[in-house]
């Protein structure tokens, strides 16, 4: 792949921003005048782009001729949409009653510190997104957390470093 080019272009074989926007434009043009198409467009745009930054919402609003406040209204209504970039891995810490009581909150504090982000955000290197969840169904072995599809039980905050090192 040709590497000298615009700033947004990268050499790792990923699409450039421009290519992603072109793709999204195509999707919009295909769905534009259908009833309720905004949700579908947002879904596909998020798949293409990874998340829905402000600039992308504006792009969609303009191209679909829908007010920006409506586009942002729909994207903040459904939890599946994220306006923050998503990390490569998602960490979900359980905040169910059992986990909360047995140190879930401490896990969150520690992770926030380690990653330099708050719950709901993504680390600067885009490696991790941090979330909390109601219950992972592992109450007997609290506190629990999940990274992508793997559940970690009875997590000791001091072991977090070595857990994250696996990713």
């Amino acid at each position, binding site marked *: 792949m040709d590497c000298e080019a615009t700033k947004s272009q990268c050499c790792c074989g990923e699409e450039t921003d421009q290519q992603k926007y072109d793709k999204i434009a195509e999707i919009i043009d295909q769905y534009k005048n259908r009833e309720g198409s905004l949700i579908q467009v947002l879904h596909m745009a998020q798949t293409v782009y990874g998340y829905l930054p*402000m600039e992308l*919402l*504006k792009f969609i*609003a*303009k191209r679909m001729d*829908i*007010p*920006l*406040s*409506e*586009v*942002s*209204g729909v994207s*903040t*209504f*459904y*939890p599946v949409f994220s*306006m923050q970039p998503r990390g490569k891995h998602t960490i979900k810490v359980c905040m169910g009653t059992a986990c909360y009581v047995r140190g879930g909150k401490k896990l969150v504090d520690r992770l926030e510190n380690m990653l330099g982000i708050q719950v709901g955000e993504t680390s600067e290197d885009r490696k991790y997104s941090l979330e909390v969840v109601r219950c992972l169904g592992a109450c007997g072995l609290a506190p629990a957390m999940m990274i992508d599809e793997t559940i970690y039980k009875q997590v000791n905050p001091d072991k977090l470093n070595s857990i994250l090192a696996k990713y």
Partner: protein
Amino acid sequence: MINLSINNKLVSVPEGSTILEAAKHNKIDIPNLCNLDGVHKFGSCRLCVVEVEGDKNLQASCMVQVRDGMVVHTNTDKVRKVRKNLFELMLSNHRQDCLKCQRSLSCELQNMGKRLGVTEARYTGQTSGGIVDISPAISRDMAKCILCRRCITACNDIQKVGILNAQNSGFKTVVGTALDLPINTVNCTFCGQCVAVCPVGALKETDAIQNVWGAISDKCKRVVVQIDPAVRVAIGEEFGYEPGTQVTGQLIAGLREIGFDVVFDTNFAADLTVIEASSEFLTRMKYSLEDMEARLPLMSSCSPAWIKYVEHTYPEKLDHLSTCKSPHTMLGALAKSYYAEKLKVEPKNMAVVSIMPCTAKKFEISRPEMTNNGLPNVDAVLTTREIARMMQEAGVDLRKVGKSQFDQPFELSSGAAELFGLSGGVMEATLRTVHEMVTGRELAIDKLQAAPLEECDQVKDVELRFDNPLEAYQYMAGITIKVAVASGLRGAEFLMDQITKQESPYSFIEVMGCPGGCISGGGQPRPATSETLQKRLQAIYQEDEVKLFRKAHQNEGVTKLYKEFLKEPNGQKAQDLLHTQYTKRGKFNEYLCD
């Protein structure tokens, strides 16, 4: 017709009516809060619940249509309990500071509490997201929002601008701009139609009262005030007059009473606008008929919400706009030049205050284009509601102040100028003058009677033919022009799309940012029902009919002003003081930041 029983009374109402409408029609009062007759129906507050026999759950009467044989009870124990409960829940996340809330005593939520007999608030809770957002024109205090969504209907369905919408979900739901951007940084037109329908203190005009009191108490300042035509037929409502009572004389007297030094008539400048715009229109017609470069249709420029709308939405079409400033900024510019010279007052020792039915004019005066010699043309804009509050604060009652008259040299005005307060008025006023300039004969039509277009109910159009013109206007001989009027921004979009597609059949377009024109401006007394608006409209037509003269060019004050000062319409001095240019903004203000 549908027959049903409400509170054991047999009633008969047209099919398709809601229970609420059926009750109202039969003088049965069901409390309702989010509903706004003829404007907004969403069913969010549920205070209008009633019992329908056979239905397990209570029904929101504003949303449910009547059925034959329905048996409805509006006032049972259960209904009263549920309503109170709902109301108390509403209070639990409301910033309850009635004692210092601008809306107190005219607040629909406050009235509802009284209406429901609520005497306690058993729930306490957090407010859901109390952002306070202050722009030059509109202020939002979302801790007072009751999520009735009336503003969403006004902004999206009536105006089709789409600045406000529900954001987030569940408990975090707020009504706001995209991603909570400050309203001053998005493409809001400041038309204030959202403010006009808000039932509580969540949306309001940004206060100018303190500044104006400051100017009044400054001994070195000569404080000039001017009044817009739509204010005088509405402000009476704030003092207990019947809607549509015209109280110009009382208002002038009241303004003197609270300390303004000079009171001018914005209508004088409306007449001046007609002369300037007519001359601009005929020049563009001439150029276009002689195949020279000319932007047609010419678009009116009196409504600052409409101006901002064009700047955001159609930044490539700004050269269609008339370069005339709005009448009150023209008058401000003249007060600080012509009048100041006459009086030998330093313009910097003057303050010009405009009393307007409008929120957008608060923004307009902050534009850098609205200055001359480094001074703003107008220093403060007060809405109709604000001036009423100032008078109340000063203990001045319009019913008791007697009457007074406007001051020279800006005291005279035509019937045509009164029409500036109504949709279609600027068009009619201008055509009266254009026709007479061109043909030397009076325009035969009156009140531009036309039905709304089938394609868009906010637009009307008419044709006008020019026969046997005077010598100087031979180029208009046998020409038929088509003109259109848009009442509200949804109509404006319709006309602008025609222009963008180069399909506009019109030579002249009038747009007022508010549906109906300034009588329903965002700064007018609330709530403005359709009956109230109708009465304000009639009052303006009446004024036009009883005026000593009805055409702008008959205004002797204006003639004198040209002779002594401006010299000629669209001349150098007029260009400097009375005309302006516009700013490309873009929907996301993308043209502003480079």
